[in-house]
């Protein structure tokens, strides 16, 4: 089979067009719920959660077995 020339290859490669950048990318980076710096901090700093005190109103003795 006859190989493609440089020019022919370039012409074919130009046919492969990428889609437009989705709007959701902007929304993901600039969401309105919280300032960007706060979201950044939230994503890096792990805050401890007090699992044992999750339901302080419940008493162990009141649980049915």
């Amino acid at each position, binding site marked *: *089979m006859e190989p493609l020339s*440089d020019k022919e290859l370039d012409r074919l490669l130009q046919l492969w067009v990428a889609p437009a950048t*989705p709007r959701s990318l902007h929304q993901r980076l600039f969401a309105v719920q919280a300032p960007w710096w706060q979201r950044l901090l939230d994503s890096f700093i792990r805050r401890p959660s007090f699992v044992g005190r999750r339901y302080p109103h419940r008493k162990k003795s009141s649980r049915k077995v």
Partner: protein
Amino acid sequence: MTESEFRKTFEQHKDAVYRFAWRMTNSPVAAEDIAQDTFLVLLGQPERFDKNRGEIRSFLLGVARNLALKRWRDDWRWDALDDEQFVAQPVDIVSSEIREIVGSAVQGLPPLQREVLILTQYEGLTLDEVAHTVGVEVGTLKARLHRARQNLRRMLASLKKKQEREGLDHGTAE
């Protein structure tokens, strides 16, 4: 970096970063994740970008490139990133549009060949800029680009006939 500077940079370079990630992964979801993470790196660690070492576009594409390769390694950890023994197979041209065939041919290249082809062919970077972006010598990049184009020539050779035939068909239909 102030928020307005960041917004301006995002608007200027989001398309190049997204396009590159999409071509590297062939997945809109993965491309969006990579583009988002790329800009978060700039936001979280702006000191990583050094104006004296190159344009911000090269820096962002370099970050996107590392993220794309990381994904690739996670998914295909047993395959070589730049397989010199890679043998290009002709792509199936029977049932596909020409642009899809071209896309799958580029997708079929080993990642290190694919990235140099995408950065030069589609993003218009010079080999010096690609060298800065991916942290590799220009000579190595030249060799990779040569192998990529050789492989594509083999993979897409059958398209030449298809195009000629279709051109002929259109010609006879008129």
